[in-house]
């Protein structure tokens, strides 16, 4: 068993650190965008032009092919350095490279080349959050065109990109798993209304309600096979869940770096608070949690690279890592005391941002639901 990180991975992470340090966007830039809940467009444009913008995009589309483990390490590093990551773009690229037509692949590559976010993911609806059988958005064919109707909820980036990969349902087909399809819907087309919501964290990325009223699209906007949308959604989740875990772990490390330093510096009762055993316990638990998260996360990404199924592991790893990451951030706020509850502390920001990692991409409860059944089934099958 080899747990070493390669020279190439290490150098790439060092490159990322060097790029972030020299890219010209400082903490103030991000704080201002956070405050105004504004998408950091200039930063993303520069990022897409950097050597990191096209990671995951195959060579023939002008990108740099990378193994999933290295992408996970990169995504985690972005979060540890406190910078918006490539999660959504990496996920977009994986989705389209897996299921898209040649034309769609080219279009996505061109958008990344131009420094624009590829597309938003339009799955969730008001009545269908965890319950993905409940999607009710429809695609209707008329005179050689396709018309999309419905209401999508909580859609990340919808106000900052011009496409949405949209899940629709054909009500004439049963069961629902065979009735779902994915379409690439332009968000600047007539009939689209977008209303941003107010999030308590992760404020630089918008989260919007998207209303689709007879939005006209082409037959060629179908992504993958008709009726296979549910299957594609599950594949998307495998990648998404691992990437969410990666950024959650990176965020937790960022808070941890602040809090452990603070424990060495802050003097109370005549000594650094790090000398108190109750603080030491938090530090030791956080450290052990980080190591456990790393091991599970990297092993899962590695497994994906070996072409093994991560259907269950992706659910388990997101469940495990995002919960521990939240616990770590919470302990960091505790170690920081009062200053840890102010905008001046990194731990506070991380704490606020991390909470959603236990909701989006499958809630804790849904992940338990997804992982537990196959585990029990496996035991039932192998009963001795």
């Amino acid at each position, binding site marked *: 068993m080899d747990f070493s990180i390669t020279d190439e991975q290490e*150098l790439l992470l060092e*490159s990322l650190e060097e*790029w972030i340090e020299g890219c010209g966007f400082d903490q103030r830039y991000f704080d201002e965008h956070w405050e105004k809940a504004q998408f950091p467009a200039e930063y993303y444009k520069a990022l897409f032009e950097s*050597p990191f913008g096209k990671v995951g995009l195959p060579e023939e589309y002008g990108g740099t092919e990378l193994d999933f483990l290295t992408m996970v390490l990169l995504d985690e590093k972005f979060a540890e350095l406190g910078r918006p990551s490539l999660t959504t773009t990496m996920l977009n690229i994986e989705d389209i490279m897996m299921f898209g037509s040649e034309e769609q692949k080219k279009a996505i590559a061109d958008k990344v080349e131009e420094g624009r976010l590829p597309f938003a993911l339009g799955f969730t609806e008001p009545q269908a959050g965890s319950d993905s059988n409940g999607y009710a958005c429809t695609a209707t064919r008329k005179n050689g065109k396709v018309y999309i109707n419905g209401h999508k909820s909580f859609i990340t980036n919808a106000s900052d990109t011009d496409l949405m990969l949209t899940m629709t349902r054909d009500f004439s087909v049963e069961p629902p798993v065979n009735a779902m399809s994915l379409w690439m819907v332009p968000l600047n087309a007539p009939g689209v209304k977008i209303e941003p919501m107010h999030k308590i964290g992760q404020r630089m990325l918008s989260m919007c309600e998207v209303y689709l009223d007879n939005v006209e699209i082409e037959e060629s906007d179908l992504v993958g096979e008709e009726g296979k949308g549910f299957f594609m959604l599950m594949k998307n989740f495998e990648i998404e869940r691992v990437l969410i875990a990666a950024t959650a772990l990176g965020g937790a490390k960022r808070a941890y770096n602040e809090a452990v330093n603070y424990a060495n510096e802050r003097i109370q009762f005549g000594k650094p608070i790090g000398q108190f055993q109750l603080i030491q316990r938090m530090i030791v638990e956080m450290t052990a949690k980080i190591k456990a998260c790393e091991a599970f996360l990297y092993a899962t990404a590695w497994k994906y690279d070996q072409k093994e199924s991560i259907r269950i592991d992706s659910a388990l790893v997101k469940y495990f890592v995002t919960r521990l990451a939240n616990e770590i951030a919470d302990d960091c706020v505790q170690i920081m005391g009062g200053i840890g509850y102010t905008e001046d502390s990194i731990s506070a920001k991380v704490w606020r941002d991390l909470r959603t990692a236990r909701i989006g991409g499958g809630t804790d409860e849904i992940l338990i639901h997804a992982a537990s059944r196959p585990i029990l089934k496996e035991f039932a099958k192998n009963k001795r």
Partner: protein
Amino acid sequence: MKIVACYKLVPEDRDINVNSDLTLDLSKATWKVGDYDLTAIEMAMRIGEAQEGAEVVLLTYGGDVVTDQKLKKGVYARGPQMGYAVRDNEAFCSDSFGTARVLAAAIDKIGDVDLVVCGEGSGDIYSQQVAPILATLMKRPVVNAVKEASAEGGQLTVKRDLEDAVEVATLPLPAVVSTTSEACKPRIPGMKDILAAGKKEQVVWEIGEVLSDQSALRKEVVNTLSPAQKERARTIFEGIDSLDSFVDALRKVM
């Protein structure tokens, strides 16, 4: 046109510990490329890229660390086609003159070199002397503190910032230059560059293959000490009348 960019591997400053006798403990230090040298490599790349068919190669002199594969990949990922390393287990005993002699001999061995680009100073000793000594040994013109350079028709045009003017000078090639630390921003390698760097050739010469007589290189370093740290005196002088006693106090400590 063949351009040689020189770099030195130096201990990471934040890993250097000061012992109680003020000597430096490098045992825990990881190594890195001197920051100033990355600027030199970038300048060499820019001059080279503007010239049809130019070749940019790297040269370093140091201990076993010169063949460390991760460090090698990290530097070679910055663009140059290939490079040379002179390995000498006693390289740390060499001063600027010794280093310049080794580099001059290596450049001679490389052959047909039109331009040598050095950094502002090494990341550790920072004497800023290697480039001028190297040029003197090679009997070539030299300009230091170059912030921009371009080559054309056997000539190098360089720009330097003076106090309130920009000096533009031309010098015939072959020549040696050293850059300012801020001359240009080193390019950031992506995965493709890093992977390619692993495959680039590094020719390794033992010191004996480059210089048969090394006696001039060997200096005895008596010690390298960190300046003693002093507690702040926290003496406060108040009012204009205390100016004299303030100056006296300053004199005493200086």
